[in-house]
């Protein structure tokens, strides 16, 4: 049995930490940046950590990717525990409640930042791995789904992605992390594009063909010169990651997700027994 208390403690600490502490991979880029507002960005992460304040006022919608072993026993459904974690962290700290319950008509604030978005993937064994993103609304609004013809060639796909980032990138608090989901169905491609954002910058796809695609796309996207804050100075793209899945013969779904320069993400792992 993995006790609920254990998940609550470990995950709450981690979720709190990534809202207040700069991602170490990102820190190196900020420290090397000398363009407009560079002082504010450097001071920001120092103040946030020292005073336990969130790095960004948009403390986001929390998106979880749960890899649940089939031999794992839990005290309650995992989404209940995850919502409890988010509610606890967001109500006990100076974070923002950014969620509204009914999206179209009332748009009434839920006042606790839940529900979180939870994707569950069953795996074999006794481990429970939870990856998560703290996703701000500005970058989330730049998500895109392309339902393409299978006859499209790789260069055409790259041009489509580059065109999307060129048009929208400056709105998402660049430098950006770019997540691409290829294959599956329309919804699967989007989830894969989000999952791609949980990877660390230097990781590459295990399939060398997709690894090359990531590298080439990163190089091409950085020629866009979007820069920090969209001001054309400093890095534009931190990294590009692709996740892929088998798809129908007639389809080629491609999901694109962009993450803001803070890249607030984490992973925690538990073992049953």
């Amino acid at each position, binding site marked *: 049995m993995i006790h609920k208390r254990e998940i609550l403690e470990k995950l709450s600490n981690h979720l709190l930490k990534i809202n207040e502490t700069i991602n170490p991979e990102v820190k190196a880029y900020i420290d090397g940046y000398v363009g407009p507002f560079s002082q504010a960005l450097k001071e920001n992460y120092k103040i946030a950590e020292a005073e336990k304040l969130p790095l960004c006022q948009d403390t986001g919608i929390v998106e979880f990717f749960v890899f649940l072993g089939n031999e794992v026993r839990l005290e309650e459904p995992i989404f209940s525990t995850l919502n409890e974690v988010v509610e606890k962290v967001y109500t006990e700290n100076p974070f923002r409640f950014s969620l509204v319950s009914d999206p179209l008509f009332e748009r009434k*604030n839920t006042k606790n930042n839940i529900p979180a978005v939870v994707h569950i993937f069953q795996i074999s064994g006794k481990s429970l791995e939870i990856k998560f993103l703290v996703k701000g609304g*500005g970058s989330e609004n730049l998500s895109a789904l392309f339902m393409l013809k299978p006859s499209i060639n790789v260069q055409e796909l790259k041009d489509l992605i580059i065109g999307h980032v060129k048009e929208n990138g400056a709105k998402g608090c660049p430098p950006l992390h770019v997540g691409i989901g290829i294959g599956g169905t329309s919804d699967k491609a989007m989830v894969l594009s989000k999952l791609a954002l949980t990877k660390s910058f230097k990781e590459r796809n295990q399939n060398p063909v997709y690894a090359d695609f990531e590298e080439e796309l990163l190089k091409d996207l950085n020629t866009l010169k979007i820069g920090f804050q969209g001001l054309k100075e400093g890095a534009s793209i931190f990294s590009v990651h692709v996740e892929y899945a088998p798809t129908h013969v007639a389809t080629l779904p491609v999901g694109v997700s962009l993450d803001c320069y803070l890249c607030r993400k984490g992973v925690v792992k538990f073992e049953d027994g």
Partner: protein
Amino acid sequence: MDEIKKLKVRELLQYTGELIVMRDAGHQRLLELVSENSKLPVDLNEKIVFYAGPANPPKNSKIGVIGPTTSERMDKYLEMIFKLGVLATVGKGKRSDLAVKLCVKYKRVYFITPSGAAAYLSKCVKDIKVLAFPELGPEAIYNISVKDFPLMVAIDTNGNQIF
């Protein structure tokens, strides 16, 4: 007003004064009131509007972290607030061609302020109070007093723009 016309694109300044904090829901409520010819709960004449929604304040403080949201979402309300007397807007990111045209037509400017730097910006905020729609939480309309608040001119009154 004359000072606004002198500002040139990419110019950096440190602003000390008042800002009206307002985002999507606050603008929408104002639009509804304007279309009904109802009295507005805020006076926007000669004010600067900051597109933002603060986080909850820490214990023993009333000032939560604050930073700009994507300005382009507010473009459909821009002419309305210019007609109400707003001198300038503050946010993040590129705006629509319409917004650029409106800045020229009404001789107004658009500033950007650093995004993802909310802990830093909150140190420039000296006071905050709710002006209208408290039930909207972070989307209520607030007035903040700021000191040395960093701004960069992103669209000037001649329509020159950064992005």
